[in-house]
């Protein structure tokens, strides 16, 4: 399928970065020990997905390593939603993670229909992402039903809304023919709106949901992103002659 490589590359980048952002959170105490342990499983899954997706267009392990750890930040093709470290604000972290996983479900639905012949990969990712979505939905539900949690979720919504504009954006000439970003965003918005209603998060989050429904727009890299990539790559890049880092 023409343009599939760009789609897969963007998807791999996003899974890799999302895994990285979860990994940041693993380094903090808590919020409680049990949740931290659960988070670490989600992080490993996402890093694994990134590897599996990259394997489709970069079968060589060293090439994959260079791809994630050696490419300049500008060359990453990832939505803003996974460019920013939100680990210090649990409510914002939960909200972002929920939105990303809801989008992931939409993406997987599309991919499963559009690209037959990869049932194992799709099956694995569906399985794990379904668990991830259930986890973040559960946290949204928990926070929405708690006075303090609800207050913080709503407070976080404005900042997170700034990050959603380029989800499912792929440049002209770099997208599969059957890929319609606007359609996917409409589906995404519908799922999120329905879930927010279900957990009692209504009018306060309408502006956020409204943005989800708009067609995808190109966006430059978020200023925080360069720091995220620099951290991720600094050791790998520190010795170009190194054959291995272990």
């Amino acid at each position, binding site marked *: 399928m023409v343009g599939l490589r760009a789609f897969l590359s963007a998807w791999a980048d996003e899974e890799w970065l999302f895994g990285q952002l979860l990994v940041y959170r693993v380094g903090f105490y808590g919020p409680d020990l049990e949740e931290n342990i659960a988070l670490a499983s989600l992080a*490993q899954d996402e890093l*694994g997905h990134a590897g599996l997706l990259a394997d489709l267009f970069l079968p060589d392990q060293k090439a994959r390593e260079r791809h994630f750890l050696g490419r300049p930040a500008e060359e990453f093709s990832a939505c803003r939603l996974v460019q920013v470290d939100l680990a210090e604000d649990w409510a914002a972290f939960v909200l972002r993670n929920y939105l990303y996983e809801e989008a992931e479900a939409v993406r997987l639905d599309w991919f499963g229909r559009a690209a037959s012949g990869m049932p*194992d990969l799709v*099956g*694995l990712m569906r*399985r794990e992402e379904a668990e991830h979505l259930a986890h973040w939905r559960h946290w949204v539900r928990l926070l929405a039903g708690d006075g303090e949690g609800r207050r913080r979720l709503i407070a976080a919504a404005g900042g997170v809304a700034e990050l959603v504009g380029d989800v499912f954006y792929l440049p002209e000439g770099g997208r599969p023919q059957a890929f319609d970003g606007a359609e996917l965003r409409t589906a995404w918005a519908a799922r999120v709106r329905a879930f927010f209603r279900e957990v009692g998060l209504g009018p306060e989050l309408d502006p956020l949901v409204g943005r989800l429904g708009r067609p995808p727009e190109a966006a430059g890299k978020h200023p925080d992103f360069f720091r995220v990539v620099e951290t991720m790559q600094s050791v790998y890049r520190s010795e170009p002659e190194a054959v291995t880092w272990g």
Partner: protein
Amino acid sequence: MPTSGTVGCAMSGPPPEAGIYEVFIRFRREQPFQHAGSVRAADAELARRYAQDVFLRRDRYLEVWVVPRECIVKVERDPWLDGVKFRQTEYRRPSYFTPRLRARGFQKVPALSVGEE
């Protein structure tokens, strides 16, 4: 007072799920609990009594737990975990490393008698 032949009577048909108690027994201190089975009883006190009569007439034992079935949160067996997931997570089992060490020529990979897989 309802008679046993009356249609729709509360005394006909099986009683509801509530009232089933799962029985777990630990025979020796250093052993884990074993799920012995279950009993049906009107309350916990009777369930406790029945558990001993039903399962422990001939055994010395250390401890018995009698748990209302509705209190148990079951995690269903998932074949996916044994198959695809198990293969995908080889990186976090000790056995992943031994072939790598051997291929690189590490002599005498130490055996760890606890937790080796």
